[in-house]
């Protein structure tokens, strides 16, 4: 599948802002069935100096400062990417979840790709006894790690309500869990906390969904904004992407941008501005299969 995608972020400030320092994680990742073809970002006002590097987990990160006083700040990212992922594993296969847990605890590598980076509580994902207990039903003794994670995803999809009004970007996990509602970020954080509570590694993945579904299929939640889901470590089965917001495994409709321990590691746009007064934010995301667009 070949996608053309555009992610526009625009801030409007009531009072002029004289200084901003930002970092962006907007470029589609390479590997695991993804091949980025192009990526460009236009920032207005023009940044003073921009640097690009990979963060600890290898996500492409662009950092810059803006020192031109401004009331509107636009980040316009355009990319093209080809996706061809293998089919999802059979839920009946793979090692038992206890073996996966013990294997990670005994790991000896601190390299960025090591699963043990994704086991501990993190800034946005505290471990809560009620969330761990929620997970237990999916992980009977000796059950498969992947089968358990898939079941957990389905249960979250069934038990939780997608509700863009219920939470905002800073809502604590405990609140989203107690209310059983939220957006993709909350669904993903809950699932990650549930898995980590049992000692299983789980990563937060930020990215996009295709905006319009293929003919005859329902439109997915989270298609008109940036999206997030979970990658679960399944031992020798490797990382498997699961989208608890939609209750599906990750294949060619999902475009991976960045992977981290939680939202705080991969926020698409993070920044500090020197300014006072209100700000408003507009985000627009378009993910279009390229052949669809051609006459």
């Amino acid at each position, binding site marked *: 599948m070949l996608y053309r995608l555009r992610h526009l972020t625009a801030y409007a400030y009531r009072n002029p802002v004289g200084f901003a320092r930002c970092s962006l994680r907007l470029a589609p990742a390479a590997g695991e069935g993804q091949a980025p073809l192009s990526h460009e970002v236009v920032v207005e006002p023009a940044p003073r100096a921009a640097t690009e590097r990979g963060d600890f987990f290898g996500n492409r990160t662009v950092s810059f400062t803006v020192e031109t006083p401004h009331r509107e700040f636009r980040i316009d990212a355009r990319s093209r990417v080809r996706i061809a992922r293998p089919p999802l594993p059979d839920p009946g296969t793979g090692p038992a979840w206890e073996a996966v847990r013990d294997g990670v605890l005994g790991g000896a590598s601190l390299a960025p790709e*090591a699963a043990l980076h994704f086991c501990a509580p993190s800034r946005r994902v505290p471990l809560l006894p009620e969330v761990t207990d929620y997970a237990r039903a999916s992980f009977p003794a000796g059950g498969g790690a992947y089968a358990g994670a898939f079941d957990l995803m389905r249960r979250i999809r069934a038990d939780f309500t997608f509700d863009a009004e219920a939470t905002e970007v800073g809502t604590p996990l405990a609140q989203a869990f107690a209310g059983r509602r939220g957006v993709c970020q909350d669904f993903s954080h809950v699932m990650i906390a549930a898995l980590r509570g049992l000692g299983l590694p789980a990563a937060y993945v930020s990215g996009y969904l295709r905006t319009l579904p293929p003919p005859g299929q329902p439109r997915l939640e989270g298609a008109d904004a940036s999206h997030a889901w979970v990658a679960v470590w399944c031992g020798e089965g490797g990382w498997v992407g699961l989208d608890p917001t939609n209750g599906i495994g990750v294949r060619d409709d999902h475009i991976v941008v960045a992977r981290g321990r939680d939202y705080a590691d991969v926020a698409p746009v993070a920044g500090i501005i020197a300014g006072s007064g209100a700000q408003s934010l507009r985000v627009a995301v378009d993910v279009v299969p390229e052949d669809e667009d051609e006459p």
Partner: protein
Amino acid sequence: MSAAATGEALAEAGAAGAARADGPAQRLARWTAGYAPLPGLPDELVAGDGALRPAWDRFLRRLAGLPECEIAARLAAAGRHIHDTGIAYRAYGEATERDWPIGALPLLIEGAEWEAIAAGVAQRAELLEAVLTDLYGDGALARAGLLPAAAAAGDPEFLRPLVGVAPPGGRHLHFYAADLARGPDGAWRVLADRTQAPSGAGHALENRLVMARALPEVYGALDVERVASFFQAFRDGLAAAASRQDPRIGLMSSGPYSDTYVEQAVLARYLGFALVEGDDLLARDGLVYIRTVAGLKRVDVLWRRIDGDFVDPLELNPASRLGAPGLVEALRAGAVAMGNMPGTGLVESAWLAASLPALCERLLGESLRLPGLPTWWCGDPGQREAVMARFDALAFRPAAAPAQGAFTSRAFGEGRDAAETERLRAVLRDRPGDLVAHEPVRLSTAPVWDGTRLVPRPFVLRVFAAATPEGWRVMPGGFCRISETPEGRPVAMGAGVRAADVWVLSSGSTEAQASLLPPSDRVAVRRVPGLLPSRAADNLFWLGRHLERAEAVIRLTVCLLDGAGAVSTAAEDRATSARLRALLHAWGAVPAVEGTAAALAHHALSDGGRWGSALSHALSARRNAASLRERLSGEAWRALSALLAVLEAPAEGPDSEAVLLDRAERALSLTASLAGLAQENMNRAGGFAFVDMGRRVERAVNACRFALDFGAAGASTDDLGVLLDLVDSRISYGARYILGVALAPVRDMVLLDPYNPRSLAFQVERLAERLAGLPALRPDGVAEAPARLVAGLSGEIAGAEAATLPLDTVAAWETRLWTIAEAIGARYFPGGSDAARPETLTTLA
């Protein structure tokens, strides 16, 4: 022989030697009688055989040369010094500072024993540096199985943005501390490593100054190692991390609301570092600057006293209000050195303790000189098995928390009940890697003076080490915390804990150098010292304004009380009183204009619930002063505390007018002495200009306001009398004009007379002088906005004439003064035009 027996023997010797009933020997006997160490635990005063240890014997014989009342008086003076200079400590979560409770006696350590401690502490510092280099480098130790990778990766102090960053200056750790206690066998053990941002060195310094002053003859006779050269070495070590000669060093503070802020201020002043907060710093174009009143000044080295995770809200904790965005990028670029590097807190964690002995063998090729508590990481199946076999005998702690927190009262899982045991077992089942188990701690004891005799109390000793180009240097001394209850648990600072100085008794000759003054050939003379951060200037300005406003409120109150005391009930007098009441009400000092003079005066002086009361302004002044501790003299802090004490005086029944008047007058004499202290003691090039400008602006505004309210056409004699009192000029007026008060002369004296130090004209001239003395940013020599505005106002005042001066003009001047205050703020303060408070950008996922 027991301690008591020793004492008796000495007492007999004393009795035989002299007929005096109470000589040194009797005192010594009395102090040590009945001294009984806790069973099974070593004690500093008496050895296992019950004899006094030699160092303590020497010390106590000297001390016993002083009568008890003398000792008590000197220790009380030491306590007062601590109180007066504000060397205070604030327990976490407490709003107010408490005095640092100093223990009466120092902890004594013999030179030979100290050498072993120092070597052990230096070895640990070196070892931890090597471990950090690996963990933030290529991770070979984890691959070799020498430390548990899962525990390191799960530690919140493993700061991933710092992985692969070569620390500028070549090292992660510049300052290290270890908390020590004696084990049951008498050998020293490390309870905790402090690698994050160790505190307490400033208290060690202050304790030393106080104790050496309180007991000079004992201190002098014992050949105590000096600590000053350690601080010199620490400063040299930080400076060596910079890439420039004569670098600028900042102490990156956790701010006035943190529990160790006062200590940070003490150290910044002592070491000559700029005390800065995150808002003072700007990372830009690959360099880091301090925002000062003279523009951006490059900073080369930051001594970090905030947690590493808070250093940079962009790359680290987004919730941090203490850091500065871009600092991690600056570290990556080598633009600034930081001691300690962010992320060094990682090696404080308990999980590492289990691996340290093997790491020491591997990395340094020697065994650990100062071992920690025997510890097991429960994430390892073999270690977990050993732990479960002794489950009930061991204490448990979170693996990613400091090893044995001397600042926690109790180890998690020690003395646990059934519910806690159940929680512990659940964690061991689901996530065993989150826990370590260790042998429980019982602290050994040291003697404490309880007023009449010595008693054994548990203690923890903190020892400090600094990295220097010549290797690790250990402070010969330290910071000792002593529990006031005879329980052997680790000691948290807070209620029930005393601090003690630590005297290392020299085995050789003591260094002569007692002050921090470096040899003169190493420091260039500089007349304009250091730099003034914009935030500090802001606080100084508001300190001046709040003090002046407090004084004005008190003067209004005095006038109100004076008028009430007069027998006159003339309409004129009531009108004057009404004006006073209206102004106090407009200023937010009283709840209503009606009421007895005494009731209103009580509100105006002492009602902390009124934002405009003298007390509220004095409290605001103290808040400003609290952020300026390294710049304020002890005398100034003391006078400010005294002012608050006078204003806060509790009402014993309804205050009479006489009591209130007395309170007001005492408060006025304190505001006067504060003004005098600023005038006499503050460096003209540093903060004084801003305190003075704050005072002048406020006083000028008040002069206008008083003239408008009490000096209108047709003002009564009472009005004019009050006006003269409010600007404290009745005596000058009387000396100049014999014929009594008249409108034009009074107005002239209040507004236009450039020789009256209370007049508007005088304030504006001083403002012009202060502004002229401040650094200019414009390279073209054109005056900056505040100076231009002041010059304009000054010209108008000089051209005005009292007899023909319209009140509208005075009102316009008052408005102009507010504009001037705003212009000063915009030019010099961080809230100014181009540096508003940062906000965070966020987007929804």
